[in-house]
C-alpha cells in the first residue's frame, strides 16, 4: 500500500514536481543566504564599533597626554611653545569611510561610519588644563596631528 503511494505520481506531474521542488529550493536558499547576510552585517557593525572604541580610546589617551604635559609645564612655571602628537587612522574600517567628531561641549569623541546610526560610538575624554577645539574630521588622509595652541590654550587638530 505504502509502496503504491510512493510510486504513484498521479497527483503531480513530473514537470510540475520538478518546478515545485526547484522553486522551494530557490526560496530556501534565498532565505538562508539573506539570513547569513544579515548576520554578517550585524557582525560588521560590531567589528566597526570595536574598532572605533579602540581608536577612540587611543585618541582620548593622546589628548590626556597633551593635557598632562601642559599641566607639568605649568607646574614648573614654564611656557608651552609647542606640543604635538601625530596619529594615523586607517582610511577605511570594515570597508567604510568614517568621520570623527571632537566635541568640546560634551567632551566626547564621536565616531560614525557612513550614515549608519548603529555604528555610532562615543568615547569620552578628560582634560583639566586645556580644552579641545571642536572639529569633525573624515578618514582618508594618512596622518592627523593634535597640536597645542598656546595663544588660545586649546588642543587643535590638523
Amino acid at each position, binding site marked *: 500500500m505504502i509502496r503504491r503511494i*510512493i*510510486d504513484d*505520481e498521479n497527483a503531480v506531474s513530473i514537470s510540475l514536481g520538478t518546478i515545485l521542488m526547484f522553486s522551494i*529550493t530557490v526560496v530556501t*536558499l534565498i532565505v*538562508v*543566504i539573506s539570513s*547569513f*547576510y544579515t*548576520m*554578517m552585517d550585524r*557582525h*560588521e557593525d560590531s*567589528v566597526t564599533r*570595536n*574598532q572605533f572604541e*579602540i*581608536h577612540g580610546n*587611543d585618541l582620548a*589617551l*593622546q589628548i590626556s*597626554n597633551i593635557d*598632562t*604635559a601642559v599641566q*607639568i*609645564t605649568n607646574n*614648573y*612655571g*614654564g*611656557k*608651552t*611653545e*609647542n*606640543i*604635538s*602628537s*601625530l*596619529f594615523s587612522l*586607517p582610511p577605511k*574600517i*570594515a570597508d567604510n569611510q568614517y568621520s570623527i567628531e571632537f566635541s568640546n561641549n560634551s567632551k566626547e569623541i564621536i565616531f560614525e561610519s557612513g550614515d549608519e546610526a548603529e555604528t555610532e560610538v562615543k568615547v569620552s575624554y578628560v582634560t583639566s588644563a586645556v580644552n579641545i577645539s571642536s572639529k569633525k574630521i573624515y578618514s582618508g588622509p594618512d596622518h592627523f596631528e593634535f597640536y597645542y595652541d598656546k595663544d588660545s590654550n586649546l588642543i587643535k587638530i590638523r
Partner: protein
Amino acid sequence: MKRSDDSAQMILIASFAIGMAIVVLTLVLNNIIFASNTASESNVETNVFEYSNSIQVTINAYEKAYSNAYTGSSINKTTFNNYIDTYTGKMTESLAFSGTVYTLENGNFKKPYFTCNGLSDGKANWTAIERINSTNKFIMAINSTTLTNNSNNFSVEAFDQAGTIWSAEFFRSGTNVNVTVTDGVTVLNSQDSSSGELNITSNLIDGSSFFDFHFDDETGGKTYSIRFINGNKASGTFLIAGDKVNGNAFETERIDLIEAKIMMNKNGKLRMDVMIPIILPKGQL
C-alpha cells in the same frame, strides 16, 4: 527504465547539500577573515612621565651646575656652560635608547622678578613657603628701578589663619627703596634704603644700618606662611631659610634666572617644546 528508478536523485540532493555547505562555509570564513583583518594595532605613546622626569633632571642639573660654578661672589660662566653642555650630551645619549631626541637650548642669565616663576609675566601673588615654625634667615635685595609708587606696590607678607601678621611694603622713593613695615594693620616702622639690601631677620638695612623690621616680634610663636604680593612690580634677589612646623628645614634662594628651552621628540610622533624658567641657585620648593 523502472518507475521507481530515481534517476540519481540522491546525487542531486547531495550536490545541493554540498553547494549549501560551500556557501555557508564561505560566509563564515569570510566573516572570520574580515574580522581579523580589520583588527588594527595601536602604538600610542602612553608615557609622559619621561617628559616630567626630564624637566626635573634638567632643573637639578642647572642647580648643580650653578653651585659648581659659584666662586663665592660670582658665577664662572665657562664652568657653568661646560657643565650644561656635558649634561646635554649625556642626556641626549641616554634618552636616545628609548627613541627620544632630547635637545636643550641654554638661555642667558636674567635678573629674576619676585613672581612665582621669576618671570615678569609670572604669577604676581603667590605663597613662597607654607606652615613655617621659625625663620632663621630672611634677606632681600630689591632693584629700585623696576619698583612703582602707587596703590599696587610690591610687598611681602607673613600670614596665618587670622590674616596678615606682618608685612613689608616697598615703593620707589626717588632712587631709593622705601620700606614700610606693618603688623597687618598699623605701621610699625618706615625708612628709605639706598641700595635696597635688607636683612629682615638681623634687622639691618643697606648692609650695616639698624632698622627694626619687627619680624621676629610679630611672627614668634606662630605658625605662618610667607607670600609675595605684586611680585611683578619688582626685580631682585632673596634668601629665606628656617624650619617648618613638621620639623623639616627649608631654604630657598633666588639670585639668577635662566630660561631653558627643552625640546623632546619621541619616535617622530610626539613633539614637545617648552620653556622652563629655572630659578638659581635653589628656587624649586
